[in-house]
């Protein structure tokens, strides 16, 4: 699922509507700088709306979960 996600998203976030704001938000969620997260969240809400940001936060939370499922169980891609 995770590598599938990477293929689907590609490398050029700015090609997507609000891609730059989404990428900055995901990066801030993965970090520990609360001020950076506050700024990234506000920028995403300004570019979209609160409902959009909440769904982005849910997707981020999902992959905080799925990465730990994969890492904690030694999940390998099928050869």
């Amino acid at each position, binding site marked *: 699922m995770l590598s599938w996600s990477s293929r689907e*998203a590609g490398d050029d976030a700015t090609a997507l509507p609000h891609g730059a704001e989404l990428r900055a938000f995901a990066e801030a969620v993965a970090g520990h700088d609360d001020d950076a997260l506050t700024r990234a969240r506000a920028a995403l809400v300004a570019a979209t709306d609160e409902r959009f940001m909440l769904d982005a936060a849910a997707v981020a939370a999902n992959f905080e979960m799925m990465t730990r499922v994969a890492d904690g169980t030694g*999940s390998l891609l099928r050869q």
Partner: protein
Amino acid sequence: MSVRADLAEAYRVASLHAVSPGARFDGARRRAIAQAALDAYLDPAPAPPWVRPYGDLALDVAHRLGAHAATITREWYEQVITEGLHPLEWVEVVGVVITSLPSAAFARAAGLDLPALPTAVAGTPHGREADELAPARLNFVPVAAPADQVAAVVQALSALPDEWDVLWLLAGAQYMSDRQMDDPLWNRGTLSRPQMELVASRLAALRDCLF
């Protein structure tokens, strides 16, 4: 802020599940495991991966999953099992961590107050496990037989059906269900599928998740 009702309900169910008796641990033990993972996840400067801050196998696995999940190897898993943690206890620790951490991750991302873990639910471990277990090629943990018929993350927690059920309840509310995934155009009217995958892939890359 108004959180979707289905998402709020999924987090309520998952948080209660995390502190309720499981297959091998009682509710108090599971709550301690969840708290160790949350403390590690929220710590901006956690102990390095090779440090075992608790001197307790289950809590140290939870700590490493919370703070340094990508550093967990088959060799470390086997070492911990050799030291006395049963393989299904390891699976249960993973289940507790991944059902307790997402609500905190969501709250932090969304700028909401961090939720406290519920009080532990009294009772003894229920012992529910898959009818038949099998070693897997795609995971280092045992899984429900037959092994390796589905993707590794899908079979990852299948040895403990209650943990598996809550994992996929959360995945459906936070991201999408298997059925929704089959429709490349499905979305909630907010993020498009490529936008969802951008968040997913960036997060997974920054977590050094190689899967």
